[in-house]
C-alpha cells in the first residue's frame, strides 16, 4: 500500500502542479521575478481574474491581460475562466456598476506589452504563450 502511494504520488503531483517544461504548453501564467510566488493553480488564477480574490497564497497580485478578440485572450477565457470574452466583460461591467473596489485586469494589446509590464512591475501577474515565457519573468503555471 505504501509502495502504491509512492508510485502514484508523482503523477498526482504532476496533475495538481504546473505543467513541467517540455510538455505541451499553450499558455504560461507569469509573474514578476521579485514576486515570491512559486506556483499557482487554475482555480487561483481564475478567482484572481474574476476579482474574487486579491491575490494568491496571501500575496497581493495585480492581474493583466489582453483586449478582447486577441487569440490568447480567447484561449485564456475558455481554458481558465470558463466563460466567453463577452461574459467576462459583462462580469466586470456588473461589478463596476455595483461599485466593487476590485480592479478589472489591465488590458494590453500585445504579448510583448504584457511581458514587459510583468517584468517591470512587482506584484503583477499575466499570461503569455509558452514560447514567450523567458527568463525576464517567472512561470508559475503552464496550461496545455
Amino acid at each position, binding site marked *: 500500500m505504501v509502495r502504491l502511494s509512492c508510485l502514484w504520488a508523482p503523477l498526482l503531483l504532476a496533475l495538481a502542479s504546473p505543467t513541467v517544461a517540455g510538455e505541451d504548453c499553450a499558455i504560461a501564467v507569469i509573474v514578476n521575478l521579485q514576486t515570491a510566488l512559486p506556483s499557482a493553480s487554475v482555480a487561483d488564477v481564475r478567482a484572481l481574474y474574476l476579482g474574487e480574490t486579491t491575490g494568491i497564497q496571501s500575496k497581493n497580485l495585480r492581474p493583466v491581460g489582453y483586449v478582447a478578440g486577441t487569440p490568447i485572450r480567447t484561449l485564456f477565457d475558455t481554458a481558465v475562466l470558463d466563460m466567453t470574452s463577452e461574459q467576462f466583460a459583462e462580469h466586470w461591467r*456588473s461589478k463596476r456598476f455595483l461599485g466593487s473596489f476590485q480592479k478589472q485586469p489591465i488590458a494590453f494589446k500585445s504579448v510583448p506589452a504584457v511581458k514587459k509590464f510583468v517584468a517591470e512591475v512587482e506584484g503583477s501577474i499575466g499570461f503569455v504563450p509558452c514560447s514567450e515565457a523567458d527568463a525576464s519573468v517567472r512561470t508559475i503555471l503552464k496550461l496545455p
Partner: protein
Amino acid sequence: MPSKTLSLSILILTGALGAQRGLAQAASPEEGSEVEIQGATKHPIPVDQAPQNVSVITRRQIRELNPRDLPDLLQLLPGVDVFRKQSGEFEVSTLGSNRDYNNRVVVLLDGKPVMNPLFGYTSWRQLPVVLESIERIEVIKGPSSAQYGANAFAGVINIVTDQSDPLSREGKQSSTALGDRGYFSQTLRGAEWKNDHGYTFDLRYWKDSERSPLVDTNGAAVPGFGAIPDSFEKLIGTFDYEKDWGTKTRLSMRASQVQNNSHPTDVTSQFNLPGASHARDRTFMLTADLFHEISSRRAVLFRAQYNRYRTEFDTDPLLGLVDDTKTVEDDQFLELELQGRSDLGKSKYVYGGTFRHTLNDGVFIDRPDEQVNTETVYGQLEYQFDKSNEGLFGLLLYNSSQNGFDYSPKVSLVHTLSPNEVVRAGWGRSFRAPEGVAYFLEPFEFASMQTSVPGFQDAARQALAGSPLLNPVLAALDSSRGNLVSFVDPATGQPVPFTLPKTDLKNEALHQFDLGWERRKKRYLFKVDLWHSESSDLIFVTPTGKLLSPVASFTPSGNSAVDGFLRAAFGSLPPSVPQTQFHNTGLVQKSTGITLEGGRSISSRLRLDANVTLQRVTLPGFFSIGAGAGALPTDRPPFTPPIQANVIVRYGTGAKSTLTSVTHYTASTLSSSILDPHVFPLPATVIEDLAFLHDFDRNTSLSLSVQNVFDTVHPEFIHSLDISSANPPIGGFLQDRTWLATLHRRF
C-alpha cells in the same frame, strides 16, 4: 495617434499604475470611448454611453496644460461658463446658467457634495483637493436633480481623485511649482497598501496673488482695487484610509482640511473698501463610506459626511467699518446616505435616500431658524431594450424644512447607431433651492440687519449717537430680533411700526430637452449637442418700493462710510425711494444652444481639437442695460455669452515631450449687479496658453506654461453697496501674461 485599443491599454494602465510608475499618459478623453465617468449615472459608464451631454478633463490634460487653477481647465470645455471674480475666485456653470454665488451646479468631490452650506455655491478656493490627485473632472451638463437633488439645476461637476486608491499610487511624490506674481506651490503625496488596508495622504502649501491690477476699458487702473492687496495662501491636507474585509466589503474614511488666508476675502473685496483686510477660511470635511457587495447582483453603500466651513474676518465682511472687529461665519452640515444597487441583467437600479442637517451660524445669519433639514429619496432605472437601445428613468423626491416639497424626474434614451456612433435624447426637470439666496438677502433687508451686521451696529452707534432722529432707529434695531422694526415718524414723533414680510421663495424650476450625436473613430471625434431649457420661478432682486417711507428725513452723520451705507441700505432718504428685495419674479428664462466638438489626429504627433458653444439666453421684461434715464431694455441676462470657442493644438515632440497650445475666446457678455436689474456690457475675452511637458524619465517631469490673458472681472454687486460713493458699476479687465513651472518627482 495611438489606436483605440492601445489607448485603452494606456488608459487603464494609467488608472491602475500611473502613480506608481510615473506612467500618467492617459489618452485624451475625447480620443476614444474608453474613458469612464460616473457622475452622470452614479456609477461608471463609458463616456460615449452617457445619457447626457458630458465633457471630461483627464489627469493627462492637467499635466500637459500645467494650470494655475482648476477653472483655467474648465473653461476649455464646451458649454461650460467660467467667469472670473476678484481675488482669483471664479464662478463656474453650464449651458448659460451662471450667476454670482452660483448654486445652479453641484460640485462633487469623488461623488460627495462640497458646496458651502450657507449659500449653496462652491468656492473654488476652498476645495479640499490637491491638483495632483485629480484623475479626471467630469462635467455633466443639464438637469441632474434627479440624481443629486437641489441645485443640480444646470449640471454637475464631479472631481474624481486617486485619494481612495492607495494600492494604485503606492510610493511618495513631490511637486514643486514656481510662477510669477508670487506663485509658489509645494505638494507632497504618499500612499501605502498592506494586505487588506492602506492609506494615502496629500499635503499642499499654495500661495498666489491676483495678477496685474484691474484696468478699465481705457486701460486706466480701476479706482480702489489697486489699493487692496489681493492674494492668498493656503494649506490643503487630506488623509484617506481604506480597510477591506475580503473582496466584498470596504470601509473608506477621509479627513481633509483647507486653511486659507485671503487678502482680502472675495466678499470684502467686492465691496471695494480700502479698509477691507483679510480673512481666514477653514474648510473641514470628514467622510466615511461603507460598501458591501451583498451578492454578484446587489450591493449597498452607506455614506456619512460632515462638512464645516468657518471664516474669520479681520474686518466686518459687509462693511469693513471697524478694523478691530472680528467676525466669524460658521456653517456646517451633516449628510447621511443609504444607497442600494441591483443589477438584474437588462435592468439596473440605483435607489436610496439622503438626510442632511444644515446649521448656519455667524455674521451672515443670526436667527432662530438657521437650522435646515433636508430629505430626499431617489430611484433610477437603466433598462437595456436591446443591443442598440438603452433608457434611463430617474425620479427624486425632496423635502426641506425651509423650502418644502419638490421633485425631479428625468428620462433619457441612448441609441447606438454603430460601435463608433451614438445618438441620445433626454428630458429632465431640476430645481434650485433658494436657501443661499434667502439667507444672503436677509442681511440686506432692513429687518434683519441689526442681527446680521454687528460691525455695522457698533460703528453706527458710535457715529450716530448724537442724532435725535436715528437714535430711536438704533434702539429699534437693538430690540428687534424678528422682522418687526419701528421707525420714528418725524411729523408726529411717534414710532411707526411696520413688518417686513419674511422671505418666502419658491424653488426655481428648470425643464430641459437635449439631443446629442457623436461619432468617434481612431483618429477623430465629432460631437454635437443641442439643448433647449426653460427656467421658471426665477429668483431675482428687484425694486419693491417705499418700504422705508415712514422715515422722512435723514441727518448725515458726517461719517461718509456710515452715510453711504445708510443710503445703500435704506435708499437715498428722504422717503419713497425704492428698496430692493429678492423674490420670485414669475419670469421665464429660455435657453437654446448648441455645442460642437471636433478633434482629429493629423499625424502620429499632431492633434487638433476645437469646440464651439453657441447659445441664446433670453429673459424678457426684466433687465436693462445701464441705469437711470438712459437705460435700454434688454432680454439678455448676464453671464450668458452668445459664443465661446476653444482651439487646442497638441504636438508630441517625441515620446517624452508634449507641446500644447490653447486659445480660448468668449464673446462679449453682460455682467450684473446683485441689487438691481441692470446689466452692463463687457468686452470679449481671449486667453492663450502655451504649455510644454517633458518627462525626463518615469519619475521626473517638468511642466512649463505661459498664459496670456485678456479677461473680464465682473462687477457683481460692487457698486450698489459701494458705501463710499455712488460710483457706476466697477468691473475691470486683466491684461496680463504669467508663467508657471512645475517639477514633478516620484520617489
